[in-house]
């Protein structure tokens, strides 16, 4: 089929978005099932339903089963709205950047703002600077203390080496770090032990090109390492008028990871990355960013579910945005966690964290962070107990996190969770939590313009934003190969950020806590293995997010500008093995309208066809955002960029 003819079926007109496209795509998804039933089963080794079955006893003894971070839990037993994308899901998707991979997790709303920026949130309050998520990569916190959000444009790793992405929507503040108000994104890479050998990949397409390489080997005696390098270049996005978005970018990154395991159940990990990137911007010179990090972790396992983890890292980032802003940021972090059973029914986890930051934000022409140079410290401790009652049918978890931040002092974040196991395959759970978003620099120290008289003079009295969250969920494995999870939530926010006009004429506005918010909704995810070779994952989130000013607040604008969330979003991922060597992956996503930005609803699809002519070689072609020549996902029309349809081809070689 020639490509233009294919797209004439999907005219770019938005008036027809919806029904028939879904019908067509669905037909595309159903077609494989017909094929699946008529095609003979692949002979010999192919995708097997039991991945470890073919291993020998000795090989089985070499497989790692516990993840390093926090306590590992069976997904079906987790008493929270957790969703997981595995490394395999990510590799199959053809994602080229981390935020793209996040689209595989259905409880996240992921909007691409322009060529490099992303707005990522769960349970609402999405923004270009979403500030209510805790995001971690291999235990390193990615959100910046500048505004408590993530600069997604510099967060990258070799995606083929990812082990999994876990997303908990809703508060995770007790056991996880701070800022886990609306959710936790926990990204982990595989141990160096599991990424041995060489890997080369080249991708070329009309919007992005990248080349990456990795080599992993053993030092012997249980010590393994890998090194990797990656270069990516992306084209400009497009403005609604069809002009160049002037945001083309390129990034170069390299890194390593070493894992060493001693027989006495000590595991050591040392890993680090360095990167450098450049982004085009209108009028001014290119944005330049660079950074690096080094992380060490020691895990001692005394017995199953009895362990100690000590982790420390250093993280440096620099960002120069000519015409607006420049920052040099250093972070030191030390984290400790102890995890052990008490008696037969209790499991205790406690830990502590210390974090030090040195930030240097230069005076900009239009705004500044004052004082420009600061050092800050945070420390926290948490304790959590899980008790099993009624012959393990009922699990109660209670925890408290106490955190000291340099702005508001000590904050308390308690949570209580209950999980009721109806039988081996069905679990109902409920939770009540309090989570705080403590101030970041932007909440207290933001001034505009840079010199008096100020129009905005910081937030001297800004205190932490508070959330009380109520959640009820249910997850079930209806039968082997078919499971679903349904989570519902009610989030009650207080002291959300507002900008209060001065009460005296000509005085500056101040950042304050004049807004309350409320959101409620439901998240459904369905995982269905239709046949041995065809898996479907479906996700749907329906939510209502609202905010209002508190008595005494004069900020009428923020109430609207804070709520930039679609009322629903849904996704369907189809993973189909046409044969042992050929795979077809189709993802369709539907996102509702963002009313306060007048971003129209859209449906988009990604399709990837891959073929392995030999065991070591994979060829793939990928089409992304296929339904429109270009479409917007976020931001007001005046400054909006649109995301274009794109195609790429890739070659992968393993040795």
């Amino acid at each position: 089929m020639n490509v233009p003819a294919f797209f004439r079926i999907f005219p770019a007109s938005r008036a027809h978005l919806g029904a028939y496209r879904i019908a067509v795509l669905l037909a595309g998804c159903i077609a494989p099932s017909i094929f699946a039933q008529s095609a003979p089963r692949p002979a010999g080794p192919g995708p097997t339903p039991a991945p470890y079955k073919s291993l020998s006893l000795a090989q089985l003894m070499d497989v790692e089963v516990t993840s390093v971070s926090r306590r590992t839990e069976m997904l079906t037993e987790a008493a929270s709205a957790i969703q997981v994308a595995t490394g395999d899901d990510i590799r199959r998707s053809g994602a080229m950047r981390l935020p793209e991979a996040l689209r595989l997790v259905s409880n996240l709303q992921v909007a691409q703002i322009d060529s490099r920026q992303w707005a990522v949130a769960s349970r609402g309050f999405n923004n270009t600077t979403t500030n209510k998520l805790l995001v971690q990569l291999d235990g390193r916190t990615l959100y910046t203390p500048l505004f408590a959000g993530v600069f997604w444009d510099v967060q990258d790793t070799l995606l083929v080496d990812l082990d999994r992405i876990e997303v908990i929507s809703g508060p995770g503040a007790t056991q996880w770090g701070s800022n886990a108000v609306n959710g936790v994104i926990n990204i982990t890479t595989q141990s160096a032990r599991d990424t041995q050998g060489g890997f080369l990949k080249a991708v070329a397409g009309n919007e992005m090109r990248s080349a990456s390489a990795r080599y992993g080997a053993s030092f012997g005696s249980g010590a393994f390492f890998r090194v990797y390098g990656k270069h990516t270049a992306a084209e400009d996005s497009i403005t609604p008028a069809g002009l160049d978005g002037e945001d083309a970018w390129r990034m170069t990154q390299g890194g390593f990871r070493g894992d060493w395991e001693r027989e006495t159940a000590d595991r050591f990990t040392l890993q680090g990355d360095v990167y450098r990137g450049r982004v085009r911007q209108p009028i001014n010179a290119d944005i330049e960013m660079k950074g690096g990090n080094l992380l060490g972790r020691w895990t001692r396992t005394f017995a199953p579910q009895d362990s100690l983890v000590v982790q420390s890292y250093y993280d440096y980032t620099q960002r120069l945005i000519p015409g607006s802003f420049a920052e040099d940021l250093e972070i030191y972090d030390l984290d400790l966690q102890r995890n052990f059973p008490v008696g037969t029914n209790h499991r205790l986890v406690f830990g502590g964290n210390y974090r030090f930051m040195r930030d240097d934000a230069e005076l900009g022409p239009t705004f500044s962070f004052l004082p420009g140079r600061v050092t800050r410290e945070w420390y926290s401790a948490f304790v959590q107990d899980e008790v099993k009652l009624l012959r393990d049918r009922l699990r109660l978890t209670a925890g408290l996190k106490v955190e000291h931040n340099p702005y508001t002092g000590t904050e308390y974040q308690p949570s209580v969770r209950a999980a009721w196991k109806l039988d081996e395959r069905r679990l109902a759970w409920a939770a009540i939590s309090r989570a705080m978003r403590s101030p970041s620099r932007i909440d207290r120290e933001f001034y505009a313009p840079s010199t008096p008289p100020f129009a905005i003079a910081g937030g001297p009295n800004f205190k932490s934003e508070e959330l009380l969250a109520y959640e009820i969920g249910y997850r079930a494995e209806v039968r082997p190969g078919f499971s679903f999870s349904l989570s519902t939530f009610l989030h009650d926010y207080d002291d959300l950020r507002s900008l209060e006009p001065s009460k005296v004429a000509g005085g500056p506005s101040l950042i304050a806590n004049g807004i309350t918010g409320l959101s409620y909704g439901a998240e459904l995810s369905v995982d269905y293995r239709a046949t041995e070779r065809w898996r479907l994952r479906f996700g749907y989130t329906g939510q209502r997010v609202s905010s209002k000013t508190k008595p005494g607040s004069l900020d009428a604008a923020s109430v609207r500008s804070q709520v930039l969330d679609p009322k629903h979003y849904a996704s369907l991922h189809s993973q189909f093995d046409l044969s042992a060597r050929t795979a077809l992956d189709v993802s369709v996503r539907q996102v509702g309208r963002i009313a306060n930005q007048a971003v129209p609803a859209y449906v988009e699809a990604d399709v990837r066809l891959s073929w392995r002519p030999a065991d070591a070689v994979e060829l793939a072609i990928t089409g992304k955002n296929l339904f429109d020549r270009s479409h917007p996902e976020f931001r007001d029309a005046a400054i909006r960029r649109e995301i274009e349809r794109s195609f790429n081809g890739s070659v992968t070689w393993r040795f």
Partner: protein
Amino acid sequence: MALLKYFPSPRDRVLPVRRPNGGAWRGLLAVLAALLTFAPPTLRAQGASKEYQVKAAFIFNLIQFVVWPPAQFASDEAPFVIGVLGEDPFAGALDAVIQGEKIRGHPLRITRSNRVADLMNSHVVFVSQSERAQMATIIAAFAGRPVLTVADLPDFAARGGVLNFYAEGARIRFEVNRATAQHAGLKLGSQLLGLARLVGPELKTEAR
């Protein structure tokens, strides 16, 4: 009730409420539901933790190296039964591993129960962690019977179970009580014993 104040009645809504593609999504859900209903059931290692996927593979692998007394099978085609006692932690992984497999001509079956009595004629019984409190009773119930008892409970093998999984760092190891196995009439292959940590009383006759 106070919560409702945030949500004005439809008439007061400032923003137009539109439900794009509402019909389409209902349609999609309906089709999806139909698909789910009519698709053939297949067994997949779905939802099982990696730990139990690996343990399921271990069990399948281990039984290749164990010989049961012939009397334990009613006929040459009689099923080989793996019992799961208590809450099944495998979440389908065990089903996926044994699907379509035979052991020396015997098709594999899984029986799940919370009662020891239901599993007395199994060839393998996996004792779930949910049965931890009754461990001693369970071991006593199977003593002397040709059943390969398997668990992942501390001291299970040392106290008279046949085989027990334990963790060493992030990896799974297993220990074997040879005295229990011998008493039960089970012959354990040297490949198995060579990888196992041996616990329990020393054997008088060196079988290897």
